[in-house]
């Protein structure tokens, strides 16, 4: 990269990542990169290894081999909380808010990783401005929110942690079509703030609309990649993965 100073370093560079569950290999050597301000999407069928990829980057799963470099730092093999403390934030599949805590507690619980404590309150007000429903219900248990509100809370919680890279795992899963549009509008908004996003989606059509670059996964391998337009024009991929 040093020979080409005009292109900046990728913020995340994954090289030959292999991950197994016991003796079953889920990732068969995956390599990809994310540049500044990009939305990169991993698409593919169920069981292709999309969530495994995110969980390996997050440190929840340990890679057998391979390397993960985040902002020029090798983070391979670090524990999940150490990776989160580098502001590489995952919003896990199925929302996963802490149901028995209040909405406010949910929003604040990740903020301990921040060093700019003074700005936490300002950010919280920003989140409440963006999601008035969360402000109305800030004292309620998060478990009492509707599915869509819970997803907003999960994303809000991640934003409170000031992500340098936001990884979203199936953010539209289990939501009504109207709410799916709302979630993608939110992702576009986050992108416009300059926060890079790694988006894992089964709803590939939606993902292609928003992504700058797309990797297609199949059985633990990247079988295709390209800009969203290139992928969209490839009828083979469309029929194989977009249903």
């Amino acid at each position: 990269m040093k020979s080409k100073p005009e292109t900046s370093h990728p913020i995340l560079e994954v090289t030959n990542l292999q991950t197994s569950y016991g003796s079953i290999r889920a990732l068969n050597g995956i390599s990809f990169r994310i540049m500044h301000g990009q939305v990169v999407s991993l698409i593919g069928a169920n069981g292709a290894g999309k969530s495994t990829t995110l969980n390996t980057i997050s440190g929840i799963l340990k890679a057998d081999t391979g390397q993960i470099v985040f902002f020029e730092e090798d983070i391979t093999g670090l524990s999940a909380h150490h990776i989160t403390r580098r502001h590489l934030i995952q919003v896990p599949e199925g929302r996963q808010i802490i149901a028995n805590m209040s909405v406010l507690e949910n929003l604040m619980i990740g903020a301990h990783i921040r060093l700019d404590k003074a700005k936490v309150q300002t950010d919280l007000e920003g989140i409440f401005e963006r999601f008035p429903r969360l402000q109305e219900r800030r004292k309620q248990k998060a478990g009492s929110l509707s599915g869509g509100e819970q997803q907003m809370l999960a994303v809000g919680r991640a934003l409170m942690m000031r992500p340098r890279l936001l990884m979203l795992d199936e953010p539209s899963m289990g939501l009504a079509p109207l709410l799916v549009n709302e979630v993608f509008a939110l992702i576009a908004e986050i992108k416009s703030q300059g926060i890079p996003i790694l988006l894992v989606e089964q709803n590939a059509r939606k993902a292609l609309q928003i992504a700058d670059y797309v990797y297609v996964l199949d059985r633990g391998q990247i079988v295709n990649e390209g800009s969203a337009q290139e992928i969209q024009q490839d009828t083979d991929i469309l029929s194989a993965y977009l249903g």
Partner: protein
Amino acid sequence: MDLLTSTTVQQIINAVSVGAIYALFALGYALVFSILGVLNLAHSAIFMWGAFIGMLALDPEKAPILIAFSIAALLLSIPSILLEKRIVQPQLLRLPHQSQRFVGLIVRVVALYLLWQIGRPIYGILIGILPETMIIPAIIAFVFSVLGGGILSVILEFTAFRPLRARNAARLAQLVSSIGAALVLVNVAQIAFDWLYNRTEGYYPRDVQLLPFIPTETWIIGDLRITPIRVVILVIALGLMVALQYMVTKTQIGQQMRAVAFNQRISSLLGIDVSRVYIVTFFLAGAFGGAAGMLFGMVFLNVTPFIGESIALVGLTAIVLGGLGSINGAVLGGFIVAFIQTASVTFGGSSYRNAIVFILLFLVLLLRPQGILGQAEENRA
């Protein structure tokens, strides 16, 4: 006041202070259960050690032994923890995966033997320096019990629970492991009792004065006799419970504990150091167990290595009654068990004391297995 009501009021007063001890003890079970989903059956042994440590500290002839031992252990623990973190663990990670566990075990057993060999002369020197008798204020003795219980409990986490979790062992395996740890702790206590008292029992001094301004004479109000110690116990126990409640709901570590209790994986994605939360939880549970042990000794005076056995049953009944893993439930359950026990002693006879607790446990499991304040699994706090 006629005789019956005054007896009843007297018994209520007794039950409240015993209930406070039970509640304090049961909280330790509830804390660990809410976070690990596993009963720590060695908690009763921690309680016994709390009572034992407090007894040693209050005995002027034994106090120097306790202090010399504590200082020696402290002196050795700091370099050995550093050695483990800086040298042993990084070096082990370089070995092939299959041999890490085995080599690690050998290295640590050898290290423990060496520590014992180095520790003995240090202990000898300290005993030589310290005076032969030392009078330790009761409040300091209490601190010894609390810290001792906490530290023993953290050692349990590292030896009996963490290695099993690391290999994804079933919860039942962790339960059995805690039974093993309890046996070890009781056996070591037997050896220590034998060495220090030449028999397996000891006694607390009567009327321990926890703070200088607290009177020791029994208050007599009408027909009622109230020993100040019982009031003190109630105040201490309630104070500790309020402090715990505050910590769990208002502080950052408390929120992290609740998050980990809800879901470990999400917690680690929120940047929470889950293993640190485990250590804090075990320390708190052990500290509560140690505190309960010393308060128990101050009321009942007689301490043996086996006092954990009957309170284990009481504690289990209390948390099942209150709702497994519920902190408020453990407190409520502790008081209810104490009231029922006291009532059975007053109206039935003391020989049914434990049978009543068993019947209560049986009935709760039969009629309301989730306990009084019990909730569905997802909502535990």
